[in-house]
C-alpha cells in the first residue's frame, strides 16, 4: 500500500475532518448510485417491495450523514441539540409502546422536559463527571418519588421500571454519542468527530455482517422465542468484522491498530446485543416493527435505528475515557 499515513497524521485537525467527510460523502454517493441503478428493476412485486425498503434505508443513511456533518459544522451546541432531538423522538416512540397510566403523567413530564434537557446541557458544558452519574443516580431516585406523589399504587414497580429503562436507553445511552464528539483527550484535541465516526462505522459493520452471517450460516437459533436468526457464531463474526474495521480505521483514532480493534470489537458486540434486547422488547410490546407498518402508533421507526448506538455508545465512551484518563 502506497498510502502515507504520516502525511495524514500531519494534516491539520480541520483538514483531517474535511477529508473524513469527503470520503464519507464520496462513498455514500457511490453506494447511492449503485442502489438507484439496482432499484430500476421492478419486475416482480417482491422486488418492488424490497426496492421501497432499500430506498427508505438509503434515505435514513443520508439523513444520518447530513445530520452528522451539520452537528460537526455547528460545534458543541449544534451537536448537542441534534442528538437531543434524536433522544426526544426515540423516547417518544418508546413511551408510546409501553402502556403507561394516568398516574405516570408527572413522571413522564419529568423525563421529557427536565431529565432529557439537563442531560444534554451537561454534555454541552462538557461536565462529564456529573454527566456520567446524573441519570443513574439523580433521575433514578427522582422518578419514583414523583410517581409515588401521584398516588397510584397499581403496578407501581413495573411502571417505574419501564420509564427508567426508557430514559436510560434513549437519553443516557444516546447522549454518549455527542459526548464522544466533545471529549477532549490529551493530544487528541478537536478530533472527537473521528471517535463518533468510528463508533457509527463499527456498529453498522457489526450489524450488517451479523445479519448476512446469520442468513448464510443457518445455525440453530439460540433464542428462538426472541429472534429466529440470532446465533453465537453470527454474533462472533459481527464482532470480528467490527474489529477488522476498527483496525483499518486506526489512523483516525488516538490509539494503535490493536487497541483500535479491541475498542471496535467491544462497541460492535454491545451494539448487536443491544439490538437483540430491542427485539425482545418489541416481542413484549407485541409489534414486529417499531415503524409505520405495525400501524399501532404510526411511529417513524427511529428507535430501531438508534438502538445499537444507544447500547454501544456508553460502553465505548467509558472504555475510551478509562484508557486515557
Amino acid at each position, binding site marked *: 500500500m502506497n498510502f502515507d499515513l504520516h502525511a495524514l497524521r500531519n494534516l491539520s485537525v480541520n483538514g483531517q475532518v474535511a477529508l473524513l467527510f469527503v470520503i464519507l460523502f464520496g462513498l455514500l454517493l457511490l453506494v447511492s448510485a449503485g442502489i438507484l441503478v439496482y432499484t430500476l428493476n421492478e419486475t416482480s412485486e417482491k422486488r418492488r417491495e424490497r426496492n421501497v425498503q432499500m430506498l427508505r434505508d438509503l434515505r435514513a443513511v443520508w439523513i444520518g450523514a447530513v445530520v452528522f456533518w451539520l452537528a460537526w459544522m455547528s460545534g458543541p451546541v449544534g451537536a448537542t441539540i441534534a442528538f437531543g432531538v434524536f433522544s426526544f423522538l426515540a423516547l417518544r416512540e418508546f413511551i408510546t409502546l409501553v402502556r403507561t397510566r394516568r398516574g405516570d*403523567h408527572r413522571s413522564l413530564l419529568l423525563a421529557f422536559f427536565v431529565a432529557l434537557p439537563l442531560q444534554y446541557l451537561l454534555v454541552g458544558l462538557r461536565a462529564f463527571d456529573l454527566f456520567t452519574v446524573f441519570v443513574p443516580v439523580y433521575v433514578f431516585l427522582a422518578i419514583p418519588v414523583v410517581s409515588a406523589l401521584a398516588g397510584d399504587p397499581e403496578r407501581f414497580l413495573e411502571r417505574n421500571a419501564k420509564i427508567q429503562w426508557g430514559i436510560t436507553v434513549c437519553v443516557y445511552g444516546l447522549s454518549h454519542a455527542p459526548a464522544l464528539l466533545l471529549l477532549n483527550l490529551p493530544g487528541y484535541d478537536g478530533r472527537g468527530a473521528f471517535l463518533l465516526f468510528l463508533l457509527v462505522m463499527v456498529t453498522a459493520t457489526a450489524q450488517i455482517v451479523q445479519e448476512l452471517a446469520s442468513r448464510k450460516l443457518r445455525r440453530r437459533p439460540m433464542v428462538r422465542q426472541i429472534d429466529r436468526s440470532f446465533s453465537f457464531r453470527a454474533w462472533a463474526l459481527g464482532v470480528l468484522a467490527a474489529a477488522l474495521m476498527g483496525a483499518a480505521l486506526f489512523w483516525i483514532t488516538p490509539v494503535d491498530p490493536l487497541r483500535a480493534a479491541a475498542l471496535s470489537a467491544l462497541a460492535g458486540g454491545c451494539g448487536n446485543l443491544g439490538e437483540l434486547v430491542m427485539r425482545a422488547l418489541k416481542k413484549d410490546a407485541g409489534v414486529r416493527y417499531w415503524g409505520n407498518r405495525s*400501524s399501532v402508533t404510526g411511529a417513524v421507526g427511529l428507535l430501531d435505528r438508534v438502538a445499537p448506538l444507544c447500547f454501544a455508545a456508553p460502553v465505548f465512551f467509558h472504555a475510551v475515557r478509562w484508557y486515557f484518563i
Partner: protein
Amino acid sequence: MTRADLMGLLLAFIARLITGAQGHWKGCPPKAEQRIYFANHQSHLDWVLIWAALPRELRACTRPIAARDYWTSSPFKQWLTSAVFNAVYVSRTRVDDQDPLEPLVDALKAGDSLVIFPEGTRSNKDEPKPFKSGLFHLAEQFPGVQLIPAWIDNVQRVMPKGEVVPVPILCTVTFGVPLQLLPDEDKRAFLDRARAAVLDVRPGRA
C-alpha cells in the same frame, strides 16, 4: 403571510412534535371535497390533532365548532378561534326561536367542510358515548356532503383530564370509508351506525 397563518403553522408544528399527528387515510383519500368529519372526543387536543393531520391545503376550508360563550370570552380566544381556525360559533344556551344547527347549516351552504364530535362532550371511557342527533339532521339536509368517520387514537394518554402540560406520545387519526344516510333510515339507527363506523376505524381492530 399573516400572523394568524404563522400561529397556525406553529400550532401544527407543536402538535406534530408532541404527538406525531399522523393521518391514516384508510377509507378515503385526502381530497378537497366538501366533507363532514365526525370523530370520537376524549381530549381538548382532538381538534388540533385532526387539523394537524390534514394536508395543509385542506386546513383552510375545514372548520371546527366552538362554543360561543367560552371561545369569545377573551380577545385571544376570539382571535385564535376566528382568525386561526375559522371556527363556526354555536351557542350552548338554547334560544327558543333559533335552530342551534343554523350556524353549521350556513357554513355547509357556503361550501366549507366541518369537523364535529357527535358525542357532544368529552368522554373518558374507552368507547364513545351515544351520538347526538345533529349529525343526522345535517346528513338529511346535505346529502351531497361526504360523511367521514375518524378515530383519534392515544390522545387521552397525551393529556389526561385535569393536566395542562402534554406528554409526548404518538397519536394517529384514522379516516374511514364515507358513510351514507340510507333512504328512510331511522334517526337512532343512523346514529348507531355512525358510531359503529367510528369504532370500526379504530386501529388494532380487524
